[in-house]
């Protein structure tokens, strides 16, 4: 059983379950859209949005919705103890982590497809003027955030207060990802976009992704064994 095949099987299973129930997709989207709408009601005055607000609001919505999705995806594995069955499979356990991670990234990417045009519209932000760089920022930021979140969600799956502990552990560790994501997105919203600055933030995000994914792959098996 190859690493890639195991990850693919876990990803396909997660997506099939989600397509059947649409539970995480609906709750995540509802939460993220509500979050953006509340900010719009509070901050947009007489049709004028505050400058530089869109980047922060977009990432707040992604982080909050991501936390919700992370909690639910492992809660699902806990309900029928299917996580134990996954861990019993004769496959590399980090491959299970990768499968779960890819599922979370897919779900968050779908949420971002709705969030980006919504934020652009409500806050009159030219988010779509540099689609390539915006995609690079969102993908690299989502990977970093989800890499840490997937590991912590798996780790906390049997903790009684996991819903409280997840954000408490997740946000301090992912602060660099959120800061880099917000600064890169804000740089893309400037009237004269400084691409070298965007490139710097994206490079930082990619470096963080490499560090977080490597650490997670390294620690997943020992964390899940006992």
């Amino acid at each position, binding site marked *: *059983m190859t690493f890639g095949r*195991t990850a693919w099987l876990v990803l396909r299973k997660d997506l099939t*379950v989600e397509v059947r129930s649409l539970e995480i997709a609906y709750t995540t989207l509802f939460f993220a859209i509500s979050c953006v709408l509340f900010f719009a009601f509070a901050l947009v005055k007489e049709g004028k949005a505050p400058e530089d607000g869109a980047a922060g609001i977009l990432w707040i919505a992604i982080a909050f919705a991501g936390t919700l999705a992370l909690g639910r995806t492992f809660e699902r594995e806990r309900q*029928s103890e299917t996580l134990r*069955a996954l861990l*019993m*499979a*004769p496959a590399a356990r980090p491959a299970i982590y990768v499968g779960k991670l890819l599922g979370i990234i897919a779900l968050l990417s779908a949420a971002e497809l709705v969030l980006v045009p919504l934020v652009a519209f409500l806050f009159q932000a030219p988010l779509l003027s540099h689609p390539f760089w915006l995609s690079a920022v969102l993908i690299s930021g989502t990977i970093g955030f989800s890499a840490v979140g997937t590991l912590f969600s798996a780790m906390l799956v049997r903790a009684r207060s996991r819903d409280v502990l997840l954000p408490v552990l997740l946000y301090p560790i992912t602060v660099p990802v959120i800061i880099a994501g917000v600064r890169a997105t804000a740089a893309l919203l400037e009237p004269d976009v400084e691409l070298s600055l965007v490139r710097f933030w994206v490079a930082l995000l990619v470096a963080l992704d490499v560090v977080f994914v490597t650490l997670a792959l390294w620690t997943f098996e020992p964390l899940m064994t006992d």
Partner: protein
Amino acid sequence: MIIDFDQVTAADVSRHFGRRRALSRISFRAGSGTILGLLGPNGAGKSTMIALLATLMRPSEGDIRYGPHTSKPTGASLRRTIGILGHDLFLYPELTAHENLTFFAGLYGAANARAAASAALEQAGLSDRADDPIASFSRGMRQRVALERALIHRPRLVLLDEPFTGLDDASAAALVGRLRGLRAEGAIVVLATHDLDLADGLLDSALFLRDGRMVDTVARPDALRSTYRTVMGRTGVS
């Protein structure tokens, strides 16, 4: 690496959860083509022993050996030889019976996962419900699918934790027949159960546990309920 073994040995195995001692100095040997019963009241440590044998936990002290192998260096290769049916059924309620079994057959590296799933459903007598979601199944039907999930890769070591839960008489009798079949095929079956009537005449040896301690072992136990009463009576439980 492909590994196989013809016996499982636990030597002075203990497991602590913080200060609580769930298992204390348990020793036994189970050979190929035998069924070992783990018997005892609630909290005796049966499920912990099953989890240890399944490599889902590590012993705090002592050693579990699978033939000449220990669990640590053999990892995934060893897990390929173990099938487990726990208290929880390890099935996804949103997926159909066939999808569940195809998923697990794939994880265990079956060359044709769909065919393996179809064969398993036929064995469970549920081919006509293959495309129904598990959520729509009765407890007994789920239990039958879960058993096939545990056996889909033809494991050498079969670990069953309360497998008779929720089964009607016909299904329980079918399960007993299936366990006898596994024994005849040379599997090592470890069965933790409260259901002494169903286990009666099925076990090749019985390990009696109480409060995490080994009370007694009995080879070829007959009249299991009275044996249980006698053994546990010595320690004040009946």
